[in-house]
């Protein structure tokens, strides 16, 4: 309690600290610059060597130098010392250098606390099952370090590890209670640094040659969907993303309509089966929600844009679960706003003259015939579907249609729309995903980035917007069987989608299904799910007071259980002893207390002197007890007699 000199660091605690530092800082090597990882590794190794040799720690100025070099390096690498990545790099640097100046227990505590904090930073990058498990191990190590710092240092490693694991095990009930009941707040509380979501991938807000073929090389999952009833035909699985209707010769963009123009609500006339499904969308930091074309019923968070894609109010920053109903047979906007039609015909002046010439030769035909002519050109001429198209120059469409004839979906969609517009048919490019693969383990349709696709839409009077996929004309297998079947061997597809061995495919399916459950039930536990759970538990419309109350009650309950569990069981005294104690207590109330050192027979003698009226009874009780406790053969009979003595005591005198 008094101010003592700082506790020196126990020698046995250092390996725990270093292992903890390695376990918490190590996995960050994946996204830290190599030089920093090397610095961390060499610093920890050096410290371990000093520990093993029992050498003194380096002087402080040399550490200050190392810190300065490290900080300067981080500032140079990340152009900042703040923000997510730079912040993590700084923490890792301190974690690696702090053991170098750890002489007292206080310093060691700082390492452990820094370690606990570093654990959290791993979740910026991954919240997968392996990360969770690894961090559980790292946490056990850090807790072991705390134990070894506070008096457990001399114990064997396994004892400390077991103790740490036991503590964590006992902490688990609190975690579950708090996880379920702690009032959740939807973040962010303030603006996040710019690099907070740098790693999110997905369709972007514009399309230029190469943008989709780049995306396709990722096997990452874009979203998963489960249909309540039957799943639509594979060829109908067009998941609608952003619609591009403005072209500058290279890049397709979404035209920003002037705000003052009235934006008519889209009119969808759906027929055929209504497919109800729930999607779990990975965060992609964009507003579109990738519903099956075309959505007829939306989640409350979404709204249907004039170009029929479903938009969220805010960019999708976390994995989100949403329910939709879609129809694949529909007429959309038979009557279209003139401004939109006008935009669907706009072309940049003077580029692609050969394409324009070809289109003008079709101008006299009806719109459907024009589209058919273009498609049959793709089908009959020598067009190839490849992920590695040659680079195109200023007249990109001309070069593609008449010279290179090799391209990916974005080339075909782009060229087709250009042709249509040049021929006077309103047309636009739609980006999104096509297809998907049903995971037999959990029945979810998995759609990956490698399923990214771009197609076209033309507007026909009386029919509205009609989807036309020029890629289907060139490579029908892309639509019917998926990207793997459509591309020749040797194309740079991610290996995860190209698994040939059945067992590997099964393994992947199982793993992804497990991940899906994890994502939905563990990571996807959000304020909304919390409300659902609480109303299921009978707390309808819970406010924070009742939540806090139930939280406190459950936590206290868990604490009580753990306290009770760890308390020693009071061993029940032997019945003879209890009876004798009761007898003595009765006598004490009558004025003759037995001293703790007095044996039963000696006590009986004294009672005989002081209270002759109780002499006989006491000597019988003492005799029984002495025989029971110290005699060779104690029998039930003796015990009974002793117990009777207690009852036979005469009532107390007033």
């Amino acid at each position, binding site marked *: *309690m*008094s101010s*003592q000199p700082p506790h020196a660091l126990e020698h046995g605690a250092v390996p725990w600290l270093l292992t903890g530092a390695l376990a918490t800082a190590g996995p960050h090597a994946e996204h830290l610059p190599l030089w920093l990882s090397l610095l961390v590794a060499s610093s920890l190794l050096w410290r371990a060597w000093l520990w093993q040799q029992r050498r003194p720690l380096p002087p402080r100025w040399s550490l200050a130098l190392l810190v300065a070099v490290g900080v300067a390096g981080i500032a140079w690498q990340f152009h900042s010392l703040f923000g997510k990545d730079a912040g993590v790099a700084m923490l890792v640097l301190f974690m690696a250098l702090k053991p170098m100046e750890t002489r007292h*227990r206080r310093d060691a*505590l700082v390492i452990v*606390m820094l370690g*606990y*904090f570093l*654990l*959290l930073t791993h*979740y*910026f990058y991954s*919240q997968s099952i392996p*990360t*969770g498990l690894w*961090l559980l191990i790292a*946490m056990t190590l850090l*807790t072991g370090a*705390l*134990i070894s*710092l*506070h*008096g*457990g240092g001399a114990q064997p490693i396994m004892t400390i590890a077991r*103790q740490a694991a036991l*503590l*964590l095990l*006992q*902490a*688990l*009930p*609190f*975690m579950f209670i*708090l*996880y379920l009941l*702690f009032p*959740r*707040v*939807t*973040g*962010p*509380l*303030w603006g*996040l640094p710019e690099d*907070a979501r740098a790693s999110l991938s997905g369709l972007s807000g514009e399309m230029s040659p190469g943008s989709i073929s780049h995306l396709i090389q990722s096997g990452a999952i874009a979203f998963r969907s489960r249909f309540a009833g039957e799943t639509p035909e594979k060829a109908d699985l067009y998941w609608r993303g952003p619609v591009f209707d403005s072209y500058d010769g290279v890049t397709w963009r979404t035209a920003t309509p002037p705000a003052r123009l009235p934006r008519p609500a889209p009119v969808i006339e759906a027929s055929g089966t209504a497919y109800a499904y729930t999607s779990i969308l990975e965060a992609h930091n964009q507003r579109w929600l990738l519903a099956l074309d075309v959505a007829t019923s939306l989640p409350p968070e979404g709204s249907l844009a004039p170009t029929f894609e479903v938009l969220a109010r805010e960019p999708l*920053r*976390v994995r989100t679960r949403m329910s939709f109903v879609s129809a694949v047979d529909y007429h959309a906007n038979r009557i279209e706003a003139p401004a939109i039609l006008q935009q669907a015909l706009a072309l940049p002046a003077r580029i692609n003259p050969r394409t324009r010439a070809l289109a003008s030769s079709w101008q006299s035909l009806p719109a459907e015939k024009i589209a058919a002519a273009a498609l049959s050109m793709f089908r009959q001429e020598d067009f190839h579907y490849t992920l590695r198209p040659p680079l195109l120059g200023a007249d990109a469409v001309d070069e593609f249609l008449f010279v290179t004839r090799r391209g990916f979906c974005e080339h075909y969609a782009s060229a087709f729309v250009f042709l249509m517009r040049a021929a006077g048919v309103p047309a636009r490019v739609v980006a999104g995903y096509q297809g998907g693969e049903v995971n037999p383990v959990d029945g979810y349709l998995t759609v990956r980035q490698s399923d990214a696709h771009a197609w076209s839409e033309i507007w026909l009077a009386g029919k509205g917007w009609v989807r036309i996929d020029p890629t289907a004309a060139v490579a029908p297998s892309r639509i019917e069987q998926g990207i793997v079947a459509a591309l020749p061997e040797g194309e740079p597809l991610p290996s995860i989608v190209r698994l040939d061995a059945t067992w590997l495919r099964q393994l992947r399916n199982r793993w992804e299904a497990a991940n899906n459950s994890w994502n939905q039930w*563990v*990571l*996807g*536990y*959000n304020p909304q799910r919390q409300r659902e759970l609480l109303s299921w538990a009978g707390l309808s419309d819970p406010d924070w007071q009742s939540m806090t109350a139930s939280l406190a009650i459950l*936590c206290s309950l868990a*604490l009580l259980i*753990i*306290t009770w569990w*760890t*308390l*020693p069981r009071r061993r029940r005294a032997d019945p003879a002893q209890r009876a004798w104690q009761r007898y003595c207590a009765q006598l004490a109330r009558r004025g003759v207390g037995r001293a703790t050192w007095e044996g039963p027979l000696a006590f009986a003698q004294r009672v005989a002197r002081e209270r002759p009226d109780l002499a006989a009874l006491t000597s019988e009780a003492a005799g029984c007890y002495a025989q029971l406790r110290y005699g060779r053969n104690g029998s039930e009979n003796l015990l009974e007699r002793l117990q009777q003595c207690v009852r036979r005591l005469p009532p107390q005198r007033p």
Partner: protein
Amino acid sequence: MPLFAALKRWLFRLARDEQLPIVLGQRRIFIVPTRAGVLFAGVLAVMLIGAINYNLSLGHALIFLLAGLGLVAMVHTFHNLFGLSLTPERAEAVFAGDLASFPLQLDNARSEPRRALEFAFDGQPLVKVDVPAQGHVTVAIPYATSKRGRLDPGRVTLATRYPLGLFQAWSYPHPRWSCVVYPKPFRTPLPRPSPGAQADHHHGDSGQEDFAGLRPRQPSDPTRHIAWKAVARCADEQMLLVKQFAGGASDELWLDWSLTPPEHGHEDRLSILTGWVMAADEQQARYGLTLPGQQIAPAQGNVHRTHCLQALALYSESAP
């Protein structure tokens, strides 16, 4: 302030423990977070803000697990003291300036060991001890003495931070404990045996040479003088008898207060006398001690030395 003191006395139960052994129940174990515990809570709060801000579900889980860990650590820290039973043992006398040590036997009835228990008297050095599972250990709690007399060490602070150091549990056992502290011996040459010593000699006064009879035992008698056979013969008397010896004649040395240099202070003169007692004892001389208003007849041996040293330790000027 008396209210505060009463509150403190009630809260921390500063009364002495009369009943032995002292068993630590929940009423006398106190627990507060340590500085590390406060730091831990702070780190958790910052982490929670981070997890909310970045919407990290697993981050929430991590923080809640750590919070649970803190609560569990609290239970374990409390549990490390709970149910421990303490039995004070007799403290050996020491010279002023030496470390007195107060032995305390710790009994652990539990099937897990109790670790990192720290014992200290207020402002005194700390001693750490582990008690094995279902075992007992005697810890010697040090007390740096500075002045002679009967030392009452006051309450013991028994603290532990095991396992995680996030909480400190402590208790204030206050057994009735004392230790005689002899004056610090000053080594000065012994005074010459006084010529009048022979005349004053009381013959046969509790020496150790020849058996002279039995008398009831006094606490200062050495155990090896107990007449066990005689005690066994008359067990009903509940009294121990010691053998008495008559001493032979030898040189007698009077260590007299008046022989110490009067220019020295009171305590220093006692220290000089103490030094003489030690020196006379080493020379196995027969010596007597004279203090103002108090006289110990010449004798020799450990018992006599202890007797003299105790007289010196407990001497007070106001005594008759």
